[in-house]
């Protein structure tokens, strides 16, 4: 028997003593043949006994409630969208606003617009349309802001 095998035998026996009287006698006889293994076995028994002092923590009373709340949230796809938009909203809104302003300034400042389009509408009407588009984009952003008001996730501090 190698030392590793002996260690395994000692640890297994310290964790769960040999069940039958015959197995126990054989194990004791084996230990009697080696004072080193006998000492190791006793130390391992003491170690496990000391480790038993560390009892497991009990689950808190609200554990199941919180878990089922999270499962329900996952089951509702609208919540996922709201969470996603909520997370996206600040950067998304800023990006959209910047894009709208840049697009408007480029278009309004360009004198070499295709003549067909320019001729089709008076300049005042085109400008009005662009402003309308910008206004509508800003209104869309305000609507997105409403998603932030939705309860996306239960308060982590709510755990009891």
């Amino acid at each position, binding site marked *: 028997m190698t030392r590793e095998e002996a260690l395994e035998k000692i640890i297994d026996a310290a964790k769960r003593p040999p069940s039958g009287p015959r197995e126990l006698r054989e194990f004791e006889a084996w230990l009697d043949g080696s004072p080193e293994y006998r000492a190791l076995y006793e130390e391992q028994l003491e170690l496990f006994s000391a480790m038993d002092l560390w009892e497991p*923590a009990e689950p808190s009373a609200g554990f199941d409630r919180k878990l089922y709340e999270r499962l329900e949230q996952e089951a509702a796809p609208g919540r996922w969208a709201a969470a996603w938009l909520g997370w996206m909203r600040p950067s998304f809104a800023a990006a959209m606003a910047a894009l709208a302003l840049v697009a408007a300034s480029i278009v309004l400042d360009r004198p070499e617009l295709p003549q067909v389009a320019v001729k089709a509408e008076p300049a005042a009407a085109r400008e009005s349309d662009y402003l309308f588009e910008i206004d509508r984009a800003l209104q869309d952003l305000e609507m997105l802001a409403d998603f932030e008001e939705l309860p996306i996730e239960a308060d982590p501090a709510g755990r009891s």
Partner: protein
Amino acid sequence: MEPDAELMLQVRAGDTVSFELLLARHRAPVIGYLSRMVRDQGVAEELAQEVFLRVYRARSGYEPSAKFTTWLYRIATRLALNSIRDRRHERNSQSIDEQSDERQAFQPVDDRANQEERMLAEVRLQTVREAISSLPEKQRAAVLMHKYEELDYQQIAEALDCSVAAVKSLLFRSYETLRGRLGAISRSRKKSGA
């Protein structure tokens, strides 16, 4: 087939009662394991929530190829190791808080002899916790699963994603370290007859 795997197959078929049964059976052991791993009850419960969420999310693809407990502790161990690594920089300050929290749980009694005995027990308990917590993370996980969660070598190997021989080597080294660190406690327990 093992009962947990049968329950999980029923969860896969849409039976929520079976999930409740699995939760009832494994909630306390998983939280116990995680709280010993991360030494923080709040974090342990957050991680345990994530473990059961992942089990539920994975229900549609579940195949009973491994023991359910092994799969469960594999998820728990990965989450715990990630959490420990993420929180490593906070460890020193947290351990001070934990010590004070744990000591607050100790209720002094009027009887002086009892009080001394309980204080001694508290010191021993603290030493055990510190000795196990100071093991390298993988060794700690192996010891906790072996000693407290009753997983066998094969299950621990699957949970830690290593060979059975590697698990045995981890455990032998860990127990050797712990025997050294806790030897003094064991001797003092013997003397006091505890």
